[in-house]
């Protein structure tokens, strides 16, 4: 009996404890709270982002901004879960450009078209607006601009007798043949063709560089037309010929960086982040001092000079947030010219003027890497393409990833694989 009695007490204590913890103090009246969800290692450091929040809070005593950080992989799931509660757990969140259509349709991001002034439209890169605009409506402020670049190992090229990087993919293969035959490097180029979004990014670069496109002007899939099939066949051929590292089929961006840093590849395609690490960081790379960037090649006869992929991010206001105006005020502050210029050591600004005159000099001078990447950004960004802004993009992308994988692992012909993916896109669009 004693035991049973003590158990009841324990249970009662537990219930009391739970209810005590569960008691939520009433909402205090006072400053409007704006809760921000963003990513670690995105642009400015955590300390810098916190400093920006402090500056905003000081300048706006009736708004209190609180900021939280998660990893990129978790960001999407955190946002969608947070939006299921009322009010949502976050008022402002970072959005990857491939999620904009999805979040717009789901009603997560606030339509801010009316809050965008003409001044903002004019002063910000048009390609930056591509990120946050879906069907003519703007759903957020662009914030972190990025695209894929073409890197090459100058030292390896020189060993093969080449003084200049290739301007076309055909030229690259010709150079690669020499590099391979002379035993300088076994697999001259490494790609991120694994079953990840990274493969779609590389696909966009090659497809558009061949004069093709993912969708036509009506939004129907166009990647399975003869140009698309030709491009995928080309990819497969480079593996068979031994120019593309065969492990590319399982690789993602970091693997590309690793292989390139080993000196086991002469060419690589990757995002901005890679340059500083491979060329200046001895702890990270064995090929420091040898790496250069060039305009992304394209295919001969395609009528295209270059093509890259726009992989940027923006900040949005939660459509169901009770503090929309305060939230938008913070976003305006965060993305303003002055703040962006102040913290542009780790973040390429969205304002055209940040790349002019004194601002440009300062921007390029921040780090040795910036001296190369900033002009490169200016040169490459006009050629950066966005992926289709459709609400079903995650599922469409997965279908296309599967198609590329099936063709590259020779389970289906390129034509068959692309046609099957196109059929799926049509089905999803219904």
């Amino acid at each position: 009996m004693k035991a049973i009695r003590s158990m009841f007490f324990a249970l009662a204590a537990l219930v009391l404890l739970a209810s005590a913890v569960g008691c939520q103090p009433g909402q205090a009246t006072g400053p409007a709270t704006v809760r921000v969800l963003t990513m670690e290692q995105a642009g400015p450091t955590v300390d810098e982002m916190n400093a920006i929040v402090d500056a905003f809070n000081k300048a706006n005593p009736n708004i209190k901004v609180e900021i939280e950080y998660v990893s990129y992989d978790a960001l999407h799931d955190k946002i969608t879960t947070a939006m299921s509660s009322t009010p949502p757990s976050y008022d402002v969140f970072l959005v990857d450009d491939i999620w904009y259509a999805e979040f717009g349709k789901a009603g997560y991001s606030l339509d801010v078209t009316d809050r965008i002034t003409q001044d903002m439209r004019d002063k910000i890169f048009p390609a930056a607006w591509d990120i946050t605009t879906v069907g003519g409506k703007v759903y957020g402020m662009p914030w972190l601009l990025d695209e894929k670049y073409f890197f090459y190992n100058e030292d390896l090229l020189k060993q093969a007798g080449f003084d200049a990087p290739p301007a076309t993919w055909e030229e690259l293969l010709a150079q690669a043949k020499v590099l391979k035959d002379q035993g300088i490097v076994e697999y001259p180029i490494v790609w991120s063709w694994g079953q990840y979004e990274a493969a779609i990014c590389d696909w966009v670069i090659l497809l558009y560089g061949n004069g093709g496109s993912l969708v036509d002007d009506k939004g129907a899939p166009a990647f399975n037309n003869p140009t698309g099939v030709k491009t995928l066949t080309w990819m497969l051929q480079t593996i068979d010929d031994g120019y593309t590292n065969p492990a590319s089929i399982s690789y993602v961006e970091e693997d590309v960086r690793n292989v390139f840093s080993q000196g086991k590849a002469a060419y690589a395609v990757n995002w901005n982040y890679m340059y500083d690490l491979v060329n200046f960081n001895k702890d990270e790379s064995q090929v420091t001092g040898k790496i250069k960037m060039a305009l992304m090649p394209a295919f001969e006869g395609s009528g295209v000079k270059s093509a890259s992929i726009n992989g940027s991010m923006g900040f949005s206001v939660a459509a169901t947030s009770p503090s929309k105006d305060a939230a938008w005020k913070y976003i305006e502050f965060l993305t303003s010219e002055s703040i962006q210029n102040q913290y542009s050591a780790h973040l390429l600004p969205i304002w055209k003027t940040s790349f002019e005159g004194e601002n440009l000099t300062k921007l390029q001078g921040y780090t040795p890497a910036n001296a190369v990447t900033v002009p490169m950004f200016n040169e490459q960004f006009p050629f950066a393409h966005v992926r289709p802004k459709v609400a079903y993009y995650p599922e469409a992308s997965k279908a296309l990833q599967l198609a590329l994988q099936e063709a590259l692992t020779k389970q289906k012909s390129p034509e068959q694989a692309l046609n099957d993916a196109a059929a799926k896109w049509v089905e999803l669009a219904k």
Partner: protein
Amino acid sequence: MKKTLRVILLSGLVLLALLFVYFPVAWLVISSISTRSELLSTPIHWIPQHPTFQNYINILLPTQGTSEVAKTFRITLGNSLLVASSVTLIALVFGSLASYALVRLRFPFRQSTMLGILGTRMIPEISLVIPLYLFATRVGLFNSPAILVITYLSFALPFAIWLMAAFFESIPVELEDAARIDGCNRLETLWRIIMPISSPGLVSTGLFVFLSAWDEFFFALILTSTVSAKTVPVAIAEFTGRYVVDVGGMMTGGVLAAIPPVLLSLIFQRYIVSGLTAGAVKG
């Protein structure tokens, strides 16, 4: 001669088992003290030529410039310890009580209760995330260790009950009959006789519950948002940026995360003693 041969053979097998365990662990430790540049060397540097303890310093003695995740790693270790220990303690207490009842006592619906408890575990956790999230926000338990403890308990209890049941079942009924004859009631038998004998089972079950809570990622990710409640798996995931994977940091985190469970098992391993039953029945 035969005995020596046997010892040699068994020692060989132990060595083999140790190799199986330690080859990846060795690599784990090596990568935590190597620079990326060295990790990429071919042929492989099994012993790093330029070892660096920077990863450990970042986590154990962070400075202003250290990454956020390294700075807060120790706190998340503490959170994980708190959550996992609480879950283990409660699961062992409530779980063994329930398990004993289900194994030894006769009452209506016994079989179906047993199966029903197991049945609740069949639903994949993924589909429980959103309802649990909404519940947590509604009762104000979001981003608290308490919600993790409660959630993990609901997962751990069914398995703990089933695990303890297996151990209880292997205890001969004669033992309890003997105790009953000596005047103990059900609960006294449970406390004085069964529990001590089942200590190997309790330790193993405790270890299982502890490590399940220790390793859980998805619920911790969704139900916590700041260092006041973040656990180790969530922290380790943050060594991955948009593209950059801080492998060295992650492996270091892994080494450090493995230490508390190993220490705990060392402390409790004396409770896995064999042959306790032998004397009790014979007499």
